[in-house]
């Protein structure tokens, strides 16, 4: 192990880690917003919306994330959309994780006892009121864990955007191999930085889960 080399590379890596955090955060925000919409569609009384939601989930989960990224980045220009690597990365990762998160949200809502919505409806609440006032506050706690698992998967999955030349951790590591010929140190640092990001995220999720614990 070459400590001097590691010290020289570290600034590049920290910058790259910053980009990994940024792209994951933006994809997470996009993913949560889309996931909320898809979950609502899947639980909607409208058959058309339910069908759309189910199709979205099975399409996204039934194909590799890498292909989805390529479709957006390389295939986009063919249909008149030319996103930069960063935008394509955020959109691809966000739309991908949305399918998984939609299922986490839907699962949490369905896990709330049926009697709760019956009690709310029997008091004259509309479907929307029952959802907002009674079901969602209880489901929110149940979705923290599964959404957290997806957020962690998202950070790890963000390494895929290296293939469309977003200069994040994995891309930076690959590029530095070319100038250093020291793959063990280079990928070791990259792995360590992912670990730090994910460990921090996991602690945040634990804290959130405890804050919403009952009692």
């Amino acid at each position, binding site marked *: 192990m070459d400590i001097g080399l590691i010290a020289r590379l570290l600034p590049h890596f920290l910058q790259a880690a910053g980009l990994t955090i940024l792209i994951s955060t933006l994809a997470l925000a996009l993913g949560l917003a889309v996931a909320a919409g898809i979950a609502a569609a899947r639980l909607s009384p409208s058959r058309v919306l339910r069908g759309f939601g189910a199709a979205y989930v099975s399409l996204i989960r039934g194909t590799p994330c890498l292909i989805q990224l390529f479709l957006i980045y390389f295939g986009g220009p063919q249909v008149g959309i030319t996103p930069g690597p960063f935008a394509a990365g955020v959109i691809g990762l966000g739309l991908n994780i949305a399918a998984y998160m939609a299922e986490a949200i839907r699962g949490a809502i369905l896990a709330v*006892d049926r*009697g*709760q919505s*019956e*009690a*709310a*409806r*029997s*008091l*004259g*609440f*509309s*479907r929307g*009121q029952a959802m907002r*006032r*009674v079901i969602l*506050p*209880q489901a929110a706690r149940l979705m923290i864990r599964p959404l957290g698992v997806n957020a962690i998967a998202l950070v790890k999955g963000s390494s895929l955007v290296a293939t469309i030349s977003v200069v994040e951790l994995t891309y930076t590591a690959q590029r530095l191999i070319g100038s250093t010929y020291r793959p063990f140190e280079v990928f070791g640092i990259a792995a360590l930085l992912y670990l730090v990001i994910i460990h921090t995220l996991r602690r945040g999720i634990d804290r959130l889960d405890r804050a919403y614990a*009952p*009692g």
Partner: protein
Amino acid sequence: MSDAPGRTPMIEVRGARKAFGAAEVLRGIDLTVGRGEIVAIIGPSGSGKSTLLRAINHLETLDAGEIRLDGRRVNLPLRGRAFERHVNALRRQIGMVFQQFNLFPHLSVLDNLALAPMRARGLDRQEARALATTYLERVHIPEQAQKYPAQLSGGQQQRVAIARALCMRPKIMLFDEPTSALDPEMIKEVLDVMVELAEDGMTMIVVTHEMGFAREVADTIAFMDHGRIVEALPPAQFFTAARTERAQLFLSRILGH
């Protein structure tokens, strides 16, 4: 029944039918409940008691037949928003108490009571809480207002659930086996509250296995079996002179121990 002449009954059920797949749960039910009348529905499990009760506030949709609340049709062939408006308005006039209480665990007792008056009746928070306090006193647990449902005993939770329904000032109260999930020593405190409600003139339909309550409090006992009301009689007659063999058999089993 107990209706004054010329007044519409509170509940009228005519020819109610309901099947879940191949299982016919309601096979032509007729039932009239007058104002202030207490009807106890008894019968073996699976006889359709709960389904009938749930059809009255439209938690179940009938396949055929009609139900009227205070002269107005409950089950209308409406869809979408019009249906939503109709059932929401209807359910505000019907109080429902469930076997499993179904209190909202994320809200304090007071907010469990105040939520519906605020959202569905448009009271402001202060009015709703004042109303909630009044009804907590009526079920004799005003001191539990700030607690959460999980901190209460089963009997206390069910009394909160009754108070929550009363906060909507319903025309009728439906009880779906209100004491079946309770420890024996808590049954009485819930039944006592129901007796007081009955004495205040509330119209009530109670699905129950509490024969003592049915005998003492009900004006009419409706015995259901296989999706039909087999007999509907005043308790004195029902318990001593049930006409059908099925009701006699049921009574001998349930009173035999």
